[in-house]
């Protein structure tokens, strides 16, 4: 059947009262859970997946895709309001979102995040529908050497998110990589830094560190400065983005959307890496961004949010075409389809065209719903931080602890969050940037395990890193990324 026919069939499955209600319900659930630090998109989908077993496959997908998109979007709300990313993917949104909120522009930041999330998500769905098989063929070629190269490329971002002091940035980044080594080593299962404590052998939980590093540390800082002394009244006139704002974020949003979708399509690279890469690339390429990013530039928010939501459509590409999940949420989606006897993989497009197109149409609809609810809700979320600090911050502390415990039902994670809170507080006081630490935590383990696995595969030869053009290309990009600031500085001084 033709693509148009399939599209019509798919749309017919989506535009039913029940299916649409599931989309709306899924988005609302996802937005609620995503905005609570410690509750991730994966967690929410995992817990609710069993409710879909009684539905038709397409209906079940509508609910789960709604949650997926909604949660990934809503992680930006606490990132902007209280400097704590609701999901790991929103970590890069903190950098410009929170400074905006401090200036009383939380509503504007949320509105920009909403529009960027919509554009990112919708663009990725269109790319998914049009180019899925072609992109999947590139994504499948990603082997251990390519992942190592990608991680190195990601780590070069430390240079540009370090703020004023590169040395402090490197210290922060290396500290993150060091923390990520706790637990069994990924090749020989040798316990590192676990000090004989069994709970430590499974490592430090990323989300627990994020909760402490951002949420608890920010709270401590507020108390030090005197709670309530910096009460900012949020401006609520700008919760629908102005024409000028839209024009300002247009290019960066579109570029980040396309880049985010491609990164999301690589199995193992999800919204967290996508948003960091798009944020960094935006900083590099957008005019004037080098100085204004990090100080509350709406383009920074747009780059990060377009990037992480675009990764969702991207992640569906290998999931649907190859049966290889693009991230942890899509892994659960595969399980949800298998309950109905449908196995995503190379045969899916032939066997279930209506379902595949229903997923395309439904996921696009999800992002339309997010746009509507996001813009309607921006006003109310922004008012949330006008809540007196004497009540707000204790509530955030409690939520942080509960969130850390809820991760795995493990008390260790609570201690990790508290420890990270103290560490984050000390770093803030001493003016160490936190972003490099986040990068180190995310990318350190990827770099390590893929470096070691590559060398195991090659029998110790370094040739594996330059034999394939894809690997070499990414490593060259990393080198350029690292050297570019110096070249620019040198050329700047030449012409001056």
């Amino acid at each position, binding site marked *: 059947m033709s693509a148009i026919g399939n599209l019509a069939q798919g749309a017919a499955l989506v535009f039913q009262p029940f299916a649409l209600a599931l989309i709306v319900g899924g988005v609302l659930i996802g937005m609620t859970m995503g905005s609570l630090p410690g509750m991730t998109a994966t967690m929410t989908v995992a817990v609710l997946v069993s409710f879909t077993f009684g539905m038709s496959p397409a209906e079940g997908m509508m609910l789960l895709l709604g949650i997926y998109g909604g949660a990934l979007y809503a992680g930006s709300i606490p990132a902007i309001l209280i400097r704590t990313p609701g999901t790991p993917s929103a970590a890069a949104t903190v950098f410009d979102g929170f400074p905006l909120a401090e200036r009383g522009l939380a509503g504007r930041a949320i509105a920009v995040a909403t529009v960027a999330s919509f554009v990112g998500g919708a663009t990725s769905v269109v790319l998914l529908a049009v180019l899925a098989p072609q992109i999947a063929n590139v994504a499948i070629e990603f082997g251990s050497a390519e992942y190592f190269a990608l991680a190195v490329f990601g780590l070069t971002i430390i240079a540009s998110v370090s703020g004023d002091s590169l040395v402090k940035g490197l210290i922060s980044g290396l500290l993150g990589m060091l923390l990520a080594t706790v637990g069994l*080593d990924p090749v020989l*299962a040798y316990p590192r830094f676990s000090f004989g404590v069994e709970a430590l052998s499974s490592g430090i939980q990323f989300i627990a560190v994020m909760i402490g590093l951002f949420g608890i540390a920010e709270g401590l800082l507020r108390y030090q400065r005197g709670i309530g002394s910096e009460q900012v009244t949020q401006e609520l006139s700008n919760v629908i983005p102005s024409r000028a704002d839209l024009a300002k974020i247009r290019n960066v949003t579109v570029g980040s959307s396309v880049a985010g979708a491609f990164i999301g399509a690589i199995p193992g690279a999800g919204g967290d890496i996508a948003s960091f890469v798009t944020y960094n690339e935006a900083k590099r390429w957008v005019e004037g961004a080098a100085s204004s990013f990090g100080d509350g530039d709406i383009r920074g928010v747009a780059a990060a949010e377009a990037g992480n939501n675009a990764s969702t459509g991207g992640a569906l590409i290998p999931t649907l075409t190859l049966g290889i999940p693009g991230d942890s949420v899509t892994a659960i989606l595969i399980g949800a389809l298998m309950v109905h006897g449908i196995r995503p993989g190379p045969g899916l497009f032939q066997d279930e065209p209506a379902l595949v197109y229903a997923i395309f149409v439904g996921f696009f609809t999800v992002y339309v719903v997010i746009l509507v609810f996001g813009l309607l809700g921006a006003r109310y979320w922004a008012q949330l931080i006008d809540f007196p600090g004497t009540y707000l911050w204790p509530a955030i502390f409690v939520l942080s602890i509960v969130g850390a415990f809820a991760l795995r039902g493990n008390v260790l994670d609570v201690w990790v969050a508290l420890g990270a809170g103290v560490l984050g507080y000390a770093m803030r006081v001493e003016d160490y940037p936190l972003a490099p630490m986040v990068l180190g935590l995310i990318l350190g383990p990827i770099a390590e395990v893929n470096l070691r696995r590559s060398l195991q595969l090659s029998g110790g030869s370094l040739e594996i890193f330059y034999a394939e053009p894809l690997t070499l290309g990414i490593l060259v990009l990393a080198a350029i990324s690292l050297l570019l600031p110096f070249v620019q500085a040198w050329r700047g001084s030449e012409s001056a």
Partner: protein
Amino acid sequence: MDMVGEANDTTLESTGRRRFLKAAGVGSAVGLVGIPGLGAAQDGEFPSGDIEMICPWAAGGGTDRTARQLASLAGEQSDASFFVTNQTGGSGSAGFRAAANAEPNGQTVGVLTVEICTISHLGIANITPDAFAPVMQYNFDPASLTVPEDAPYGTIEEFVSYAEENPGEVRISNSGIGAIWHLSAAQMAQATGIEVEHVGYDGGAPATQAVVNGEVEATTASPAEVAPQVQDGPLQMLAVFGEERSDLFPDVPTLQERDIDVTIGAWRGLGVPEGTPDERVQALNETFQSVYESDEFQSFMEDNGFGLVNRSPEEYGEFMSSELDRFEGIVDELDIQEGS
């Protein structure tokens, strides 16, 4: 890092970076809510009251989904209310330990997976089946050996002789060092006397991807995990490591049929803390046994590609102690428990 990923996890990569992001104990939050009603059985017929089933793997994974299915059907069949909590980490040891340390009154049931017989040998955690009174086994999934369709070997015999002629050249991917699929490949290699390189990945999906894109020569996983790539994709399955052929691939022989005396795979079952009164173990076994035999459970397992194997408390206990011995031998020969 969680080295030993969840066995036969067809839906969720179990280790690696995404362990940070992946689903984890929201079930525990549910458990918290359940605490007020928790307590020993009321007067009258056991099972009753709240019965917690501790799943040592993340919500949304294979073990979690089977446990939730058991819990919801068991709840329909008895007066008790069964609920699943996820206590993850330490390659399953966190959840095993929590279940083993619970009060031995039948109100806490541990979901036991093959890792209970491997992690003590791997030096990950000092916990074994001895901490539990077995209730029943409800699942077994054999390992299988899968290679690219265009590989220079099309049968298991040809694979073995290729590996004999090219010692150390054949690389076999698995879902994580020390995980059941790694140990399965190791036992196959030990039994056939071939020398292969085991390459660990962060879960089943990347291990499969590695053989699809040619980074390695073969992969070991459950048949369900590689099914999409074998049915419509570029891979072929040479052998399954079970006693019987897989329903998914009735044309693929078992190793035993080809005179390689290896049966190995992942399994799941239930146990209660050692010291739980026998009549409670029996009562739980009866409840779960009738769940196991229900059409609903059988079709759930088949739809999801989980193999159905059932053992009574006694049989399951004997099976687990033989597994414990067997894995000690495999791990010793592999020499991977350097951390212990």
